[in-house]
C-alpha cells in the first residue's frame, strides 16, 4: 500500500517534469549560444577591453560615455528613421501589394517577382544596388542624358543616403512580409466579409473594418519581425556606405560594430549592444504580453 502510493507520487512527479523536457533542446541550445553570449557582452559592457589585453572594469563608465557621445545620439536617430521606414515600406507597402495581388489572376507571377530580391543575401543585394546607385551607375546615366546636377554619387550625400538605403532595403525585404500577408488574406473566411458587404461596407472601409482586424495575428508576426530587424539594421548599411560619410549614416548596430571591432573598444560596443537589446526586448514584450493573458 505504502509502496504503491509513493510510486504513484513518483509517477505524478515525473508527469510534471515531462512537459519541461519538450522545452529542453531549445532552451539548452539557445542558452549555450545566445544567453551565454548575452551575459558575456553584459560583463564586457562594464569593462574597458581591446580584445587583446586584460579587461579593466570601469563600472558604468561606458554607459555614461554613451549618452554623451554625439555619434551615439545621431545613430539612435538614424535607427529611428530605419524603424519608421521599415514600417512604411516592408510593412505598409507590402500590405498594399498583398491586397492588390489577391485581386488579380496572376498571383504567383507577382508573388515571385516581388520575392525575387529576397532570394539574394542582404550583402549581395547591397553590392548590386551600390553599383547601380554610385558614380558609374544611374547617376552617370542621368549625367549622360543631360541631368548634370544629378550626376554625383548619391550614396555619399549625408542624410539622403539613409533614405536611399531604407528604400533599398525595402526593395530587398518586402518579399517575406508580402508572402505572409497573402497567406493571411487568402485564409480569411468569406462569411464575415460577405456579411459586411451586405451591410454596405465597400473598398477601404471594408478593409479597415473587417479585413484588417482579421489579419491581426499575421500582422503581429510581420510587425514584430520587421521591428526587430529594423532595430538591428546592419548589413545593408555596412555594404552601401559603411556608415559614412563621417558617420552620418550609422545605425546603432553599425556604431556598435565600429566601436567594438574597428576601434577595438569592445566594452563600449557591448554597452551599445545592451542598450539596443533592452529596447527591442521591451517593445517585444509590449506587443506580445496580450497574447499571454489568461495563459497561466
Amino acid at each position, binding site marked *: 500500500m505504502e509502496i504503491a502510493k509513493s510510486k504513484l507520487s513518483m509517477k505524478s512527479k515525473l508527469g510534471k517534469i515531462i512537459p519541461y523536457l519538450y522545452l529542453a533542446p531549445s532552451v539548452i541550445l539557445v542558452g549555450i549560444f545566445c544567453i551565454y553570449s548575452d551575459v558575456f557582452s553584459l560583463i564586457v559592457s562594464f569593462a574597458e577591453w*581591446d*580584445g*587583446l*589585453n586584460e579587461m579593466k572594469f570601469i563600472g558604468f563608465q561606458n554607459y555614461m560615455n554613451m549618452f554623451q557621445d554625439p555619434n551615439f545620439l545621431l545613430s539612435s536617430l538614424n535607427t529611428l528613421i530605419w524603424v519608421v521606414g521599415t514600417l512604411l515600406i516592408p510593412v505598409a507597402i507590402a500590405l498594399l501589394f498583398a491586397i492588390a495581388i489577391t485581386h488579380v489572376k496572376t498571383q504567383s507571377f507577382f508573388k515571385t517577382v516581388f520575392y525575387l530580391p529576397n532570394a539574394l543575401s542582404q550583402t549581395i543585394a547591397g553590392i548590386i544596388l*551600390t553599383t547601380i546607385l*554610385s*558614380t*558609374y551607375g544611374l547617376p552617370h546615366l542621368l549625367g549622360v542624358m543631360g541631368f548634370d546636377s544629378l550626376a*554625383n*554619387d548619391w550614396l*555619399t550625400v*549625408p542624410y539622403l543616403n539613409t533614405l536611399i538605403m531604407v528604400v533599398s532595403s525595402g526593395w530587398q525585404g518586402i518579399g517575406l512580409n508580402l508572402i505572409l500577408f497573402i497567406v493571411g488574406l487568402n485564409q480569411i473566411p468569406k462569411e464575415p466579409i460577405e456579411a459586411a458587404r451586405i451591410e454596405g461596407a465597400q473598398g477601404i472601409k471594408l478593409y479597415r473594418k473587417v479585413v484588417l482586424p482579421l489579419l491581426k495575428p499575421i500582422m503581429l508576426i510581420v510587425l514584430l519581425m520587421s521591428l526587430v530587424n529594423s532595430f538591428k539594421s546592419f548589413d545593408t548599411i555596412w555594404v552601401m556606405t*559603411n*556608415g*559614412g*560619410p*563621417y*558617420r552620418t549614416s550609422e545605425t546603432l548596430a553599425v556604431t556598435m*560594430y565600429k566601436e567594438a*571591432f*574597428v*576601434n*577595438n573598444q569592445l566594452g563600449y560596443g557591448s554597452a551599445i549592444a545592451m542598450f539596443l537589446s533592452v529596447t527591442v526586448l521591451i517593445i517585444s514584450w509590449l506587443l506580445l504580453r496580450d497574447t499571454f493573458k489568461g495563459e497561466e
Partner: protein
Amino acid sequence: MMKKFIFTLLMVASISILLVACEGSSEGSKNTVDYYSDLADDEPTVKKISEEIDLPIKFTGYSDGQAYQTAVSQSLGKENSPGIFKWWSGYRLKDLATTGQIADLTAEWEDYYTEAGINPELADAFTVDGKVYGAPLSVLYNVVFYNKKVFEEYNLSPPETFDDFLNIAETLKNEGVIPLAVKNDGWASFVWLQFFLGAYDPDLYTELVEGNVSYEDERVVEALSAWQSMIEKGYFGEPVKAVDQTKQFAKGDAAMTYEPPIFIKGLEDDYGMEANEDYGMFVIPSMDGTTKPAIFYEASPLVVSEASSQKEEAKEVLRELETKDAFEIYAKESKAAFVEGVKTGNEISDEINEIANSDDYILKLRYYESTPSAIVNAATENLWEFFYNPSDESLKKALENIQKVADEEEF
C-alpha cells in the same frame, strides 16, 4: 506538394550527411607552419613561394578584416595559434606586443634578415620598446599616379614645384577633368593630411604624430589651408568607391590619384593599361622648394605567435621568406617592391622602389600607423567632415576635435 517537399528535404539531408562522412581530416604534417593573413588574395603567391623555395607553409586567407582580427587576437596565447600571421605596424603592433604574445625577432633581424639584404632601417616601423617584433611583408610607398594620355592631351608634364602642381590642377579643372580622384573609404581622409603636411614640412609631420605639436598649431593650420583652398577650387573629385576611383583614372575622367603601387595591379588587370604608356607617377614637390620631398609608406609585418607550438619552425620559415628570392616572387604578383634590387616587372613600380631607396627623398611612416588609434579614428572622421564642408571654421573645428582626443592620449 508536401510529400514532394519532404522528399526533397530528405534527399538534401542524405546527400549532406554523405558529404560530412566523406570529410577527411585536413591537418597537415607536424612541421607545417600556419600562415594567417587578411590578404586573401596572397594565397596563390604564398603557394608559389612555398613551392619554389620548398617551405612547409599552410596559408589561410580571411576576406574580412574584422573576422581576421577576431580569429587571431582570440587565439593568441594558445598552442594552436598560427605560427606566422600578418599584422599592422605602428600602434597596432604595439598593442599586440604589450600582451607578450608575439615573439621578439630582434636576433633574427641581426642574424638573418639584414644579411639577406633587407634594409635594417625598416625595423624601426616594427620596433616596440627597443625590440623588433615584425619581419617586413610589404612596404608600400605612396605616390601620385597620373594618366599620361590626359596629361599629353593638355600638354602637361609632372610638376617640378608645388606651384606647378597647382597650375596643372587648374588647367585640368578648366578642361572639365577631375584633377585628383578621391576614394571614400572611411579611413582614407588621413592620406591628404599627410600629403599636405609632407609637402609643407616633413619635420612638422613628425612632431605632430609624436605629440610634440598641437593639431591647432598655426603651421598645421597653414599646411591644411592649402588643402582647403584646393578643395574649394574644385581640384578634388567627389569621394567615390575605391573601384570607381580606379575607373575614373583609367577612363581619363580623373587625371591623378594618390596611391600605393598596388594600385597598378588594378590598372593592369582590369583595364589593360601599360606603364609609361598610359600612366606615370611623381612625388609631390615640397612647398618651399628646398626641402627634400617626402614619401609616405605603409609597412605590414609578419609576426610570430609566442605560444604557438610552431614557433621555432615559424622562425625558420621566416628566414627563408625574408630573402630577395622570396620577395622577387611576391613583387611580381603584387606589383610592389621595397627591397633594393628586387624587380616587379613593372617599370613604374620599379621606379618607385628605386627613388624610395635613394637619398633624394625623405621617408615617413604614414599617419595611420604612426599615430595612436584613438587619434586616427577621430582624425579620419573629422577630416572627412571638413572635406565635405570646407571652410576656415570647419577646418578649425576639425583640428580642435582631433586635439581634444590627442590631449587624452599617451604617446
